[in-house]
């Protein structure tokens, strides 16, 4: 049902209800977009950090994030941990896996042509996807929580778990910002992203920085995967699907820019929901990517790309 139909419906409704219906829909779609954008934010953080520091397009990040969701599912259902504790366990395990991936798969390729790490990242995506399938099967799994209430804000409905995703993404954005700007390791990460050679001369161990980036990026990915499982569901090939969104956010926001990733994520989320809600649900994905292309036509470096400090 397209925009024209909405307008016709708008005109058919009498009195003061006219404005209310359209406003209600706009508010609800805005809330929908912000909620989905929050998941994209969490996914994009890890990608942005890894690309910003190491110039690696880590295609396996989505699948590793989904692996975090599976670990949360296991901890919750097999070990009886709470949802939040399960996520912490998932962050630790996926952080370690991120470290292994960096040390054993990417470390030796840092001075090789970019195509090499691109191929390796695709290979890792396939490997991790198959490992997940071998361990958990192909069926989707939903992480069931007790957060089943639905809240209403000025007429817009928000499911409880989605609200927690949104709040978590805001908190993590603040924590990440403070970490990168106020802490010594964070400053080392930012400095490495801006000028690797200079930080080496200043005595920073860049290899430790690389490891830190992968650990932190993967751990945040585990949070994304866990929330995806709680709001939607997880299955082994979902990582390959969502990583495209992750890279779209990266490109939209500006490669290697954390603030750009945040803005890009919410722009993508809102584009999808408004496009599906007011233009056509048939072309939901297409509309979002068209908007992305339009932004890039006018700002090829992304929303926060040029002039913005890396990370």
């Amino acid at each position, binding site marked *: 049902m397209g925009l024209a139909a909405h307008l016709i419906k708008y005109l058919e409704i009498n009195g003061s209800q006219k404005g209310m219906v359209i406003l209600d829909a706009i508010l609800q779609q805005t809330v929908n977009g912000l909620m989905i954008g929050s998941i994209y934010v969490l996914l994009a953080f890890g990608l942005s950090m890894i690309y910003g520091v190491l110039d690696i397009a880590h295609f396996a990040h989505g699948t590793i994030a989904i692996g975090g969701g599976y670990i949360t599912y296991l901890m919750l259902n097999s070990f009886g941990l709470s949802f939040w504790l399960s996520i912490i366990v998932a962050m630790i395990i996926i952080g370690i896996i991120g470290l292994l991936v960096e040390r054993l798969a990417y470390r030796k390729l840092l001075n090789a042509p970019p195509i090499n790490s691109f191929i390796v990242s695709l290979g890792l995506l396939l*490997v991790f996807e198959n490992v997940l399938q071998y361990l958990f099967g192909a069926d989707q799994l939903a992480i069931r929580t007790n957060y089943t209430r639905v809240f209403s804000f000025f007429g817009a409905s928000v499911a409880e778990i989605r609200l927690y995703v949104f709040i978590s993404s805001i908190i993590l954005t603040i924590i990440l910002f403070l970490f990168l700007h106020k802490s010594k390791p964070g400053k080392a990460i930012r400095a490495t992203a801006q000028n690797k050679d200079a930080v080496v001369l200043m005595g920073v161990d860049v290899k430790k920085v690389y490891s830190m980036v992968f650990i932190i990026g993967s751990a945040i990915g585990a949070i994304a995967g866990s929330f995806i499982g709680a709001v939607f569901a997880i299955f082994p090939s979902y990582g390959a699907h969502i990583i495209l969104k992750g890279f779209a956010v990266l490109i939209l926001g500006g490669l290697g820019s954390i603030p750009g990733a945040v803005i890009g994520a919410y722009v993508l989320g809102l584009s999808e929901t408004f496009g599906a*809600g007011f233009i056509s649900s048939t072309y939901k994905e297409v509309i979002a990517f068209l908007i992305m292309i339009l932004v890039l036509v006018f700002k090829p470096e992304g929303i926060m790309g040029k002039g913005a400090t890396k990370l």
Partner: protein
Amino acid sequence: MKRNFRDLALFSLLFLLLLFGLLGCSEEQGAVIDDNDVEEEIEQVGDIKILKVGMNDALTGAAAVYGLPQHEAVQLAIKQINEAGGINVDGDIYHLELIAYDSKGDMTESLSVAQRLINQDGVNIILGWATSGMTSAVAPQIAAAESDVLILVGTAGERGITAKGHPNIFRTRPPADFTGGAAGDFVANRGIEKLAILGQLKDSFYQQYVDAFVEYYEDAGGVVVTTEIFSQGDRDMYSQLTSIQSMDIDGLFVPGYVEQAAFVYRQARELGIDVPIYGFTGGNEDQFLAVASEEDMDGIFDLRPSELTVEVLGPSAVKFVEDYTNEYGKAPTPNAPFAYDQVWVIKYALEAAGTVDDISKIIEAIRELEIPEEVVMGYIPVNGKLFDRSGQAYIENIAMLWEDGRWTVYDLLASDVEGYSEFLYNLDE
């Protein structure tokens, strides 16, 4: 020394991970050949010959929710037939061996799988075919190119698969629009005057169901207020449901895969949409409750072919559920018997034809086949036979209602088999 040990430990961990990955790859990409330990348990009474049959189905990906149960059902049927003494074809005893490849629900992959089964594995009978998208593109193509290959289609319900009239294609599941019209009538008769449709309408199978549904629904006086779409991989339907919520409707109809439909039902209730909901999904309780709560599901209808509805089927259905559950530790899905029944069709057709090589004789035997007693689905015979002139079998249409945590039989829907069979035969597709 310390660093070497640490690197060795790290390398070993990654190696193990890679090993798992490669194991997973080989299991997905390669043949899933059923082990033959069953044969070792059977006494050798004369020579037992092995007849390979192929399976082309979605064992991974979004369509695996329908393809995997089919695969399991076929494995079960083969095991039961082999254990019961095999197939007697003109005095020779045959055991079936299944060679199954994963099409991933993808057209290109499915074509490659079919060609591999025929050219490399030498099979001339191919089972499976759970999804319409790949089946409607691939099965007729294979049937036209390889007239000595028999194709038995399961859950894929796109009408053209049998409407095209290939003599070597048979299907156990009725076409989507056979149910759609009856469903449209049903919804209109329940007093739903303004309906929203939210479905997987990029898929021709669901589109055909909806076309027939809308035709009958509007003929009965209903109005379709809005139509929204979700895709096979979608899990977030909030945007579409928000749009629907702003419309003046008194009913919602949801045709689509069970995984997506479950999210629609949950998210509709989260948004406060409390109009009656009618679906066309064919999912079992476990599949829905993995995503939605019992409260979300309460009062929802599913308008579909009767499939594995034990309450209306006979003892063979009860036995199938028991056997399947014992074998796999889980309940079968409603569509699984479409593939299970394919194997029994082969058994009786081979015995009647007296050959495993002459496909034209086997096809003739299938056309003359009455309904075997071991089949699970409640087939409606057409002129006393299981399949009609188009190679199509039919089962009752049914309205299922979710009550007290499970699907219950609400009512049978109109099922004009003779009329539809005639329509299908004369269709120019």
